[in-house]
């Protein structure tokens, strides 16, 4: 015997209060009342004694008894009284409905239907077999487990949520979904029922390797037959060619998910212009890479397609946006430019232009870098300028001394211009020691003072670097410090141009980008709309999660990576349910056996008893107030 809504103590206390109130009302109702009437003559018949007055508190014990019984039955109904043990009590079930990307695969045997339709049908079938008093909570499971409903006894709410479930863009995270369902069930407060997984059980290799299912006493799996032939794009990546200026190396990875070999053709378009196609022979379950080369400096959309089309079309197409190839224009004024030319020609992003000092004209392009090599023009340049060993006479910077040999050279750390520079690498000859202004940045210090300084304008648009020595002369031109220092200058002057760019198309879901740094503050993960995505820096990588198709930029230090997450996250292996797991929809008799809801009948019976009492004993009951017309008319 169980009270589902109340403890026995609560029930007894409530019934006691209601019974006391009912008895009090009863006694009040039956107490002596004053009643003004038209006549008294018929109460006392002539010649007969008046009816004997009996002073009894309980005048109609059956009426009181019926009222108490009615109240008792109604309270039992409210308490959801049930016979039997807790085995018949209400239970809470969690339905985990797979809505991973793979659920959008079309069924070869049923037109216009996909795996999601099958999963919905089996979930609804299970829902119909659940006892009416049990509560159900729906969890949608893909890369993240999301509750779609609260604990519900209203089956229409659950059914509506099931029908509204659509395939997502990520693969199934089964262990997280089942763990989440188990936690929900433990926190519900009622007896735990089943945790039901409805789906094909396709998971990634990473998920399969780390699969640890929670201990679930009643675990049911509604399996789906998903033997569907499919081949698709796993990833599409683009990187600037290291050998060819203005070219991109494109890498396309394709996989055959089916159990039979397939021959497919991969095509590549850039800006709707075909760039090439590759026939690919894919063995069953095999993955293969093909590469393309695209020549362009302009930005545009790069699209890869796979033919022929198959049951799952979402992974037959991938696209990414190639950014424009930007460059830095460098104008060198030098009468001895031979030493500079190799250093400037090493980076394809630098467009050098060498001029004689006599050809000097002020540079109109504010983004260009002007290098003045042992030269001071009459009109000083305004934009970005690199002064290399300016002449002592008429120097634009105050020179404290001229050293023939620099000793104790020390690079000032923690500045982008001195990143990677070490003092022991440098064999510095003659150098000028400057008298720095308060706003100048000291970059290299000798014993007598700074030999290299820098400054930036207030708005940060123009930069000036002054070297008191010539790194392209003497022994220093053979040092690694020279190209590093020049590269640092370029990056400082034009960081956008020299940022390492790597674009690629991947599947949505959990993304981990390699990142050697530790500083979290320099990392930004941005969507196309400029919103910040939450991320974590862990194990030398930046990790973030994208639940749907999107374009995401990750800025980390000097590198930028653009993710076009247009591909669905696909599975690698099929999960096999452990032995002992219940399978399929439970039989009707199994559910009916536990469906012993007494409360509606108790409520009806209680109401019937109260109505009967009112009819039989109520002061204004229809039996007593009914006008008996026939005797009246007969009397008339």
């Amino acid at each position, binding site marked *: 015997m169980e009270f589902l809504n109340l403890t026995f103590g609560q029930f007894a206390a409530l019934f006691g209060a209601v019974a006391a109130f009912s008895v009090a009302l009863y006694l009040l109702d039956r107490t*002596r009342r004053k*009643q003004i*009437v038209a*006549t008294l003559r*018929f109460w006392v018949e002539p010649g007969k004694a008046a009816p004997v007055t009996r002073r009894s508190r309980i005048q109609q014990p059956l009426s009181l008894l019926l009222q108490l019984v009615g109240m008792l039955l109604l309270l039992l109904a409210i308490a959801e009284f049930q016979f039997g043990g807790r085995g018949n009590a209400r239970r809470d079930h969690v339905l985990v409905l797979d809505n991973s990307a793979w659920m959008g695969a079309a069924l070869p045997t049923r037109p216009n239907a996909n795996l999601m339709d099958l999963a919905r049908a089996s979930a609804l079938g299970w829902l119909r077999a659940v006892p009416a008093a049990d509560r159900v909570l729906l969890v949608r499971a893909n890369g993240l487990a999301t509750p779609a409903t609260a604990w519900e006894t209203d089956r229409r709410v659950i059914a509506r949520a099931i029908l509204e479930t659509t395939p997502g863009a990520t693969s199934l995270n089964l262990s997280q979904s089942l763990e989440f369902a188990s936690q929900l069930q433990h926190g519900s407060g009622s007896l735990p029922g089943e945790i039901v997984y409805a789906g094909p059980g396709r998971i990634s290799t990473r998920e399969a390797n780390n699969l640890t299912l929670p201990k679930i006493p009643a675990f049911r799996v509604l399996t789906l037959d998903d033997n569907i032939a499919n081949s698709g794009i796993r990833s599409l990546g683009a990187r600037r060619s290291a050998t060819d200026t203005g070219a991109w190396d494109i890498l396309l990875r394709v996989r055959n998910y089916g159990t039979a070999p397939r021959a497919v053709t991969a095509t590549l378009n850039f800006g709707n212009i075909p760039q090439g196609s590759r026939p690919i022979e894919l063995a069953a379950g095999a993955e293969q890479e093909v590469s393309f080369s695209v020549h362009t400096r302009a930005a545009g959309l790069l699209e890869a397609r796979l033919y022929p089309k198959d049951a799952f079309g979402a992974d037959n197409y991938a696209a990414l946006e190639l950014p424009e190839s930007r460059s830095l224009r460098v104008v060198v004024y030098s009468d001895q430019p031979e030493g500079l030319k190799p250093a400037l020609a090493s980076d394809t992003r630098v467009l050098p232009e060498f001029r004689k000092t006599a050809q000097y004209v002020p540079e109109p392009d504010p983004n260009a870098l002007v290098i003045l090599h042992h030269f001071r023009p009459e009109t000083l340049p305004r934009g970005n300028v690199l002064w290399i060993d300016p002449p002592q006479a008429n120097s634009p910077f105050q020179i404290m001394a001229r050293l023939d040999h620099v000793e104790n050279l020390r690079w000032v750390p923690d500045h982008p211009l001195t990143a990677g520079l070490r003092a022991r690498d440098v064999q510095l000859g003659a150098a000028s020691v400057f008298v720095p202004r308060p706003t100048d940045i000291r970059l290299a210090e000798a014993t007598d003072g700074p030999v290299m300084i820098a400054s930036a304008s207030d708005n940060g648009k123009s930069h000036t670097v002054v070297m008191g020595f010539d790194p392209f002369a003497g022994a220093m031109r053979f040092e690694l410090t020279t190209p590093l220092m020049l590269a640092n200058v370029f990056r400082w002057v034009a960081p956008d141009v020299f940022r390492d760019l790597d674009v690629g198309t991947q599947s949505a879901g959990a993304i981990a980008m390699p990142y050697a740094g530790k500083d979290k503050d320099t990392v930004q993960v941005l969507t196309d709309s400029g919103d910040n995505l939450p991320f974590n820096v862990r194990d030398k990588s930046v990790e973030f999660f994208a639940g749907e198709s999107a374009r995401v930029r990750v800025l980390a230090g000097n590198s930028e990576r653009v993710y076009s997450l247009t591909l669905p996250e696909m599975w690698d292996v099929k999960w096999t349910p452990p032995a002992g797991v219940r399978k399929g929809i439970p039989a009707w008799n199994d559910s009916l056996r536990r469906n012993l809801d007494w409360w509606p009948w108790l409520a009806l019976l209680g109401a019937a008893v109260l109505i009967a009492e009112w009819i039989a004993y109520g002061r*204004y009951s229809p039996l007593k107030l009914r006008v008996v017309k026939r005797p009246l008319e007969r009397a008339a």
Partner: protein
Amino acid sequence: MSGRGETLLDREFLERLERLTIHWQRSFAGLVGGHNRSRFAGGGQEFLDHRHFHDGDDLRAVNWRAYMRLDKMFLKMFQIEPRVPVRMLLDTSASMAAGTGEKFLFARRLAAALCYVGLVRLDTIQLLPFSATLREGKTLGGGRHRYRVAAEFLEDLKPEGATDFLTIVRQYLNEYPQRGLVIVLSDFLDERTCEPALQYLADYGNELMLIQLWADEDRTPPWSGEVDFVDAESGGRLRIQVDDEARRLYTEGFDAFSAAIKEVALRNDGKYAGIPTSLPLDEAIFGTLVRVRSIA
């Protein structure tokens, strides 16, 4: 919105009453008028019979054609249509207002309806409210346009006092010796028994139309348990334990009382109608009163 004289009966209901007529069985000497024919000959419009001429008869009534042919004088007699006053005794005692007061309202509405029926047929109606004694009445005649006066008179009545039928009947016979139809609208709940007084009224040649009204609680009391009853008229108290048996005895006593009143009416060639106030008024008029031929 209803004005004075329109709260008791609405216009639609009055229109339905226009086809009815108050009926009585006896003939009463009186003036020409009304729609109840008299067996008394007189100066009416309709020929009734011939008789021999006697000295002093009106020569205008001599049948001269018969005289010329038979050489005898015959007098033409015409049927008179008397203006017999219909007197309506309306109980305004406190017992009529006991409980919810619906009995008094019902009685006034019924009186208003009968008034209108009589006025439409050009009868003369005399409204006589009473409780312990006869109160000031109102005589109405001359057609339906006088109904408003009757309705306003009925609306202004207030229930008060105890009922004393014997005193009332004595007073009535003194003030209104002319015989006629007497309609009594009452619950007939008197401290003393009312049957002798009613018989007294009939013995003086009046035709009785007794309409007994009761509220449902007057006949079938709904109370149970210990009840302290107070008489609305006398203020007498009775503390009694009411149970099913007591209620059954009460109803039997009430029915016997109603039967006694009915017997008085029928024994004197009158009419009786017992009407509960829970009955709709139109059903009481077009059903009960038509069935007992009080009106037709």
